[in-house]
């Protein structure tokens, strides 16, 4: 849908347009809220955000895209809520180490070389892998189970293609941490493909 037309309809108070935008962005907004304040407050934060969107859409200046504007609102609401609950959760608590991942020290010799050879993949064609319905399901399932901050960072970066700078400010994590989060998420998903290559299932 043409964004400029959509914004015009929203400003005019068109409730169909509003429902459409909710359908488009609710899920992504929820992942951001969960990444910042956790599951318990995420739904409320997103609802507050929609109220704010509804009240302030007339002032939307179209300098940023509608999506960026929405994500900024939910990010700010979530950060405000986090301060209010004064529940400072560290990144470590949200996204603890994943034992058994590729970066586990057990996978390396003392000199830092691989303990065992990196496993062979019979199928190295992304196009062919994308045809494998079961693999798709395995990846989607694993993605949903990632710790919230990792999941949001991964979705924003690799699926929604946001810049690292944007992700840092949306999720309120440092530049270094956001890279670590994305890397961990990718490695976990790579492990899914690894297992699939070996066993043909999740």
């Amino acid at each position, binding site marked *: 849908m043409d964004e400029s037309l959509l914004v015009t309809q929203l400003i005019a108070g068109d409730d169909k347009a509003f429902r459409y935008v909710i*359908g488009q962005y*609710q899920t992504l907004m929820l992942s951001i809220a969960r990444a910042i304040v956790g599951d318990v407050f995420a739904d409320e934060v997103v609802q507050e955000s929609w109220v704010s969107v509804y009240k302030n859409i007339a002032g939307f200046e179209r300098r940023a895209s509608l999506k960026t504007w929405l994500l900024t609102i939910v990010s700010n609401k979530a950060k405000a809520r986090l301060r209010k609950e004064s529940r400072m959760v560290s990144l470590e608590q949200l996204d603890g180490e994943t034992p058994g991942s590729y*970066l586990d020290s057990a996978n390396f010799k003392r000199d*830092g070389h691989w303990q065992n050879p990196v496993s062979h*993949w019979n199928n190295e064609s992304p196009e062919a892998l994308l045809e494998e319905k079961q693999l798709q399901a395995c990846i989607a399932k694993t*993605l949903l189970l990632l710790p919230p901050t990792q999941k949001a960072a991964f979705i924003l970066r690799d699926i929604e293609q946001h810049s690292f700078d944007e992700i840092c400010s949306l999720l309120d994590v440092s530049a270094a941490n956001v890279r670590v989060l994305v890397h961990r998420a*990718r490695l976990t998903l790579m492990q899914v493909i690894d297992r699939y290559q070996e066993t043909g299932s999740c």
Partner: protein
Amino acid sequence: MLSCKQVATLASQYLDHDVSTPLKWRIRMHLMMCANCRRFIRHLQITQTVTKNIKVDEQTPDSEKIWQELQQKIRQESKQD
């Protein structure tokens, strides 16, 4: 020379072109010598291509319900004013 562990840790940044030039060359040097890390990086790149096309089928949001709740909330707030 970088260790395999260091290369594995930096792999995403390397693929994202997010390392300094000297570090990039040190990684390339390692990759020239190490078939395992070459494979690791290649697999990570394939993973990126495959996962960026994934459909995240979380429950589709119930826009109607969210919209109704939103309307209710706005009515409540305007009553309080």
